[in-house]
């Protein structure tokens, strides 16, 4: 599965369009990590556990999107966009969406 966030796949030609696909996920860390992050907050700096949370969430959203694209028999998703929002304290939502297409190499 090829993913791009531009409107084509360089070096490939779009054969058919399969429609919009999307995936979203809301994830939270456990309370112990929340407290640790709260303490880290006093002096500032990177909150590693939350960074990890964000990348896990992003991975999962992309995976769900790819699953959906596979069901539509697409082999690429173009114009992928990410949107994030803070739903409640300590939880992050990542939403990924794009257009599933069928591509073939030029020539």
């Amino acid at each position: 599965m090829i993913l791009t966030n531009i409107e084509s796949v360089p070096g490939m030609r779009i054969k058919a369009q399969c429609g919009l696909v999307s995936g979203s996920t809301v994830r939270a860390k456990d309370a112990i990590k929340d407290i640790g992050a709260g303490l880290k907050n006093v002096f500032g700096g990177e909150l590693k556990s939350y960074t990890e949370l964000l990348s896990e969430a992003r991975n999962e959203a992309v995976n769900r999107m790819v699953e959906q694209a596979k069901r539509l028999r697409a082999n690429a998703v173009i114009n992928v966009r990410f949107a994030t929002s803070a739903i409640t304290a300590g939880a992050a939502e990542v939403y990924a969406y794009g257009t599933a297409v069928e591509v073939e190499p030029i020539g």
Partner: protein
Amino acid sequence: MGDILGLIIILTATYFIGHAFEQTHFEEIKKREIMLIKRPLLNFGARNFNTKRKIEKVELVTGEVVISGDYFKFFIASFKTLFGGRLTTMESLLDRARREAILRMREKAPLASVIINTRVESVMLNDVYWKNTRPQCAVIAYGTAITYGS
């Protein structure tokens, strides 16, 4: 009297420690940016990316980071919102987070010839136990990494 003294101690401690953390982080960011200076990063190319060179690999790369500021920063910022104007303490926090996210994205594609259509998405998260007082900044940077074939 004791409360004020306690506040002053907390503020000075967080100022010096937070400032030291921030400075080391900024220096690290600068070093990494200098190392990547010759590798092109563009934020256009969605519609008009044309090349005659052979393309070997196309992939989506992302980089994410969550950074929080220290207590001193938010204390100053909450004061400053009374008078308005630039919140310099918050500006440095956001700057740091965005640059770090972009660097992580670029480091994930070490062999890419060019990264096009870079987008940066950010959101302020509130922390759980001190609601709304110390927001954290979460940033996702993403783009399409293109590797040219030889």
